[in-house]
């Protein structure tokens, strides 16, 4: 029985007097995929950053792959892979050097081999020794995905990964994310694109004013109903 990818209870986080998260409970089983929806300012980004251990919650408990975020912070961070809008790459290092650096920094084993394999798999083998800055946005996003996966994380967090991608690049990324492999990490994707979100997840939640206000299973959910939930009148909390 493996540990849940995420086990979070009563997460709160405030910035000054603003309460961005007002008590979020979340449990993500091993291998499960979740879509995170919500208006800007609803706490979506904050929640994802807290789950990604980029932000500490003010209260509540959080464990990633069984590692407590406070007591075993470094091990917990090692289990996470992050893909956001920034490339998180060094433009002047080659694709391979980027993966090697980030891989080693995350404690990956067999870094060289894994880097080559990932580059091959994501169609970036030709750019292996080229500086990362020559890559187009779409290719760079793929390299960023490789960076997120190089250390075999238990949890992959995607923060609006389709931002700035042209339809072909978006398609290419979607195809790679949709693949279900036995060693694939659990995943949370935060996105405004409801169709993509539903296609890439097993279930979804909607964040509103710092709390989860709606949820459902992705299969069989009509995107329109999610859109409706977005527009639901704000409840006083």
């Amino acid at each position, binding site marked *: 029985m493996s540990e849940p990818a995420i086990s979070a209870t009563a997460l709160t986080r405030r*910035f*000054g*007097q*603003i309460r961005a998260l007002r008590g979020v409970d979340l449990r993500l089983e091993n291998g499960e995929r979740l879509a995170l929806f919500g208006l800007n*300012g609803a706490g979506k980004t904050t929640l994802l950053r807290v789950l990604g251990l980029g932000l500490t919650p003010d209260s509540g408990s959080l464990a990633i792959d069984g590692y407590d975020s406070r007591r075993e912070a470094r091990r917990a961070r090692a289990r996470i892979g992050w893909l956001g809008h920034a490339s998180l790459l060094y433009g002047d290092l080659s694709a391979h050097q980027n993966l090697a650096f980030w891989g080693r920094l995350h404690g990956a084993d067999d870094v060289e081999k894994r880097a080559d394999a990932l580059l091959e798999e994501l169609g970036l083998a030709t750019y292996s020794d080229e500086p990362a800055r020559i890559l187009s946005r779409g290719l760079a996003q793929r390299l960023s995905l490789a960076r997120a996966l190089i250390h075999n994380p238990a949890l992959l967090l995607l923060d609006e990964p389709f931002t700035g991608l042209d339809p072909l690049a978006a398609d290419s990324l979607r195809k790679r994310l949709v693949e279900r492999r036995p060693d694939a990490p659990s995943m949370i994707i935060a996105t405004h694109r409801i169709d993509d979100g539903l296609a890439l997840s097993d279930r979804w939640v909607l964040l509103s*004013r710092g709390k989860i206000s709606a949820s459902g299973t992705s299969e069989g959910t009509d995107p329109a109903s999610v859109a409706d939930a977005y527009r639901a009148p*704000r409840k006083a909390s």
Partner: protein
Amino acid sequence: MRRSGTRFLDATLLAATIAAIPAAIWAAMLYAPTEQTMGAVQRIFYFHVPSAMVAYLSVAVLLTSSIVYLAKRDLKWDDLSLAATEVALVFCTLVLITGPIWARPAWGTWWTWEARLISTLVLEILLLAALLVRRYASNRDLGARLAAILGITIAADVYVVHKAVEWWRGMHPQVFKEGGKGSIQTEMQTALLICTVSITLLCVLLIRLRYRTARIETRTQTMILERAEEGD
């Protein structure tokens, strides 16, 4: 919301300061005897020296509130840091203005490369830079955190800079001698004491007042942000 206890303290502080200022002016201008060599302009010394001390006092407050902010992350400590920074800046500027005003008629030079003036100049620059960092930060929490780290480094630095310049100046003895404690008459010492106490009270009052306005600003900002979230 101030409780009656704080109101009483604030009132006492205000009253004490209002009483102390004329006392200081009297002590410096009338009570203290005129210095033989430098003449009347030497009286600026009674404001110059306490201003420097009080600038350092404000930095000590800054150091404390910076450390507490990093530990507790309550913005009120950042408000206190801001107040301490600005008040320290005011008194540093006073030192840097009164210094040359005193030096020129007394010794014929506008500027002297001695420990107090240089350390104060360094402190002034660093405090201004800290305010800039606050302003440039994209959000309040980041600005507060970075300013807190700077508060700690600045406080540590002021001491080291002062010592270093003292040593360095010791290698290049200047012609003049400041009113060192050894050569000072009792009336002068008393005047200095009165002025020090008054200026310290003034400093505490200013920090307190600035802190209160900073708290109001912070609370208003947060209310505005919260309303913006709720509204459509």
